């Protein structure tokens, strides 16, 4: 009995310590963004001056606009490609080159990004020399981000697809639905939640990427992480903390809003299902 109590408290303590470790840097970033001292070592009172400096920082603001555009395009591309790949892997147990396909889908998850970035760039340069297209910039950054994002999206969507009851799709087909109708009317509504998660995940992934962007960007296409990275390399900069706090706030609001929306959709669907089960009034 007593050893069980001790174990329980030890477990809780370990979890608490782990969460402190995971969240400490985030809390520190937010706190220091309001610190009047440019040095993180001492607290010298509350200020908003780093935020005011941010509003004047055109380099950072321009790069933010670019990053948001790339992240939006990446999320859309990754979700489409990832959903196709997940459907192919779940629906078709056997096809030529399935092993190679599933290997290629998951490899970008673990492959060091310097290798991914370098190989993509060398290919783009080779292609550009041959046909004069594409120039390094928005499009090439998107290609790299979408390749990485596809891997994440596939994992998320695949996990949901394997949970689905195949009888629902079979029933729709028995009732005469065409494959495309089965997908849009039956499969898609059931995987919407995972598509949303995949979209958000790949959006933040793209918004955060340094290495691929560095290899694939050209002059005039500096993304925000590249700007932050070059400043962070030089030393500590409170305006970086201010940006970080804003990003943390936006992401927190976004994730909370998304999960709220997903939960509401889920409730509404359940409600509809319950209504459909009842005899017409």
């Amino acid at each position: 009995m007593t050893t069980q109590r001790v174990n329980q408290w030890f477990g809780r303590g370990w979890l608490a310590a782990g969460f402190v470790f995971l969240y400490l840097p985030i809390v520190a970033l937010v706190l220091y963004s309001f610190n009047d001292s440019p040095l993180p070592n001492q607290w010298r009172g509350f200020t908003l001056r780093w935020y005011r400096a941010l509003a004047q920082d055109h380099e950072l603001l321009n790069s933010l606009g670019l990053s948001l555009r790339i992240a939006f395009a990446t999320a859309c591309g990754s979700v489409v490609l990832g959903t196709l790949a997940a459907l192919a892997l779940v629906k078709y147990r056997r096809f030529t080159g399935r092993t190679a396909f599933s290997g290629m889908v998951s490899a970008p998850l673990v492959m060091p990004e310097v290798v991914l970035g370098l190989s993509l760039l060398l290919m783009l340069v080779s292609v550009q020399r041959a046909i004069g297209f594409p120039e390094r910039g928005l499009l090439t950054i998107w290609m790299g981000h979408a390749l990485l994002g596809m891997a994440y999206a596939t994992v998320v969507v695949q996990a949901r697809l394997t949970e689905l009851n195949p009888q629902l799709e079979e029933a729709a087909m028995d009732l005469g639905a065409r494959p495309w109708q089965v997908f849009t009317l039956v499969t898609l509504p059931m995987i919407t939640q995972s598509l949303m998660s995949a979209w958000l995940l790949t959006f933040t992934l793209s918004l955060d990427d340094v290495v691929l962007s560095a290899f694939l960007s050209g002059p005039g296409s500096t993304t925000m992480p590249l700007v932050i990275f070059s400043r962070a390399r030089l030393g500590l900069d409170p305006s970086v903390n201010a940006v970080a706090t804003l990003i943390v706030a936006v992401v927190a609001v976004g994730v909370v809003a998304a999960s709220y929306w997903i939960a509401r959709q889920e409730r509404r669907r359940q409600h509809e299902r319950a209504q459909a089960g009842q005899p017409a009034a």
Partner: protein
Amino acid sequence: MKPARLLSGRKALIGAPYLWLLLFFALPFLILVKISVSEMETVVFKDLITYRDGLLQLSVKLGNYVFIGEDALYFKTYVASLKYAAATTLLCLLIGYPFAYFMARASASAQPALLMAVMLPFWTSFLLRVYAWKGLLSDNGWVADLIIGSGADQLLHALGMISAPGKLMHTPFSLVLGMAYTYLPFMILPLYSNLAKMDLRLLEAAADLGASPWVAFWKITVPLSKAGIIAGSMLVFIPCVGEFVIPELLGGPETLMIGRVLWDEFFSNNDWPMAASVAVVMILLIIVPLALFNKYQAEAQEKRA
């Protein structure tokens, strides 16, 4: 008519992502390998196979690989990368295994919230979280003060993780801590999903047969979670070998890692074939762990199906 339609739908469904991966994943690797054995003449790569005077000529330059094999600095850098990646993996396992274990044994109602709390830092910029450690570990930072105040820096010094007591930033310690921090969720999540599925009746059976909880843990829980341990370790180890951003921000002159060498060959020395060779050797180093990881993934998929 109908089977033909279905077949074409199937072809398009598999074909589109397949083609994308071949074009943007497989082909770049072939080109990477080709350029690693190419000679660079000013800015143009010489063709590997040329047709001249009625003869096919094959020119392959292995000089870069010979140089990597002979040069002591490259060798040391590869060894250091593997060493720091291994240390990071071990640290993640030491922190993450108990974490995942207690999470899996928490009450069923608490588990989704705990899982969400582990996932949340994923949504916050990785670059900014690494940058935050710079402030925490620099001279007079909170964490630095805490470690030095508790005397733990003496221990780290004895372990060779810092070169002198009292200085934590830009050392092997700050590098391994930063990487362990970043990749910890990658260790926790596969371990958790593995441990949460475990059949607890096995532990009851062990207890009935007279095993102490500790013995049951080592003889039943740990062996059963082997797949999770392998997956988590690979998800930490492989990306750490080639990590660039964390060594650049938290590492120091004594922590040279291969990702940084590749970066410098490419961006500073402009030696593209050399950078490609460094990358190819890096892939060769991680190919065994990568195959292990893929094997585990395939097995996990089999089980689900």
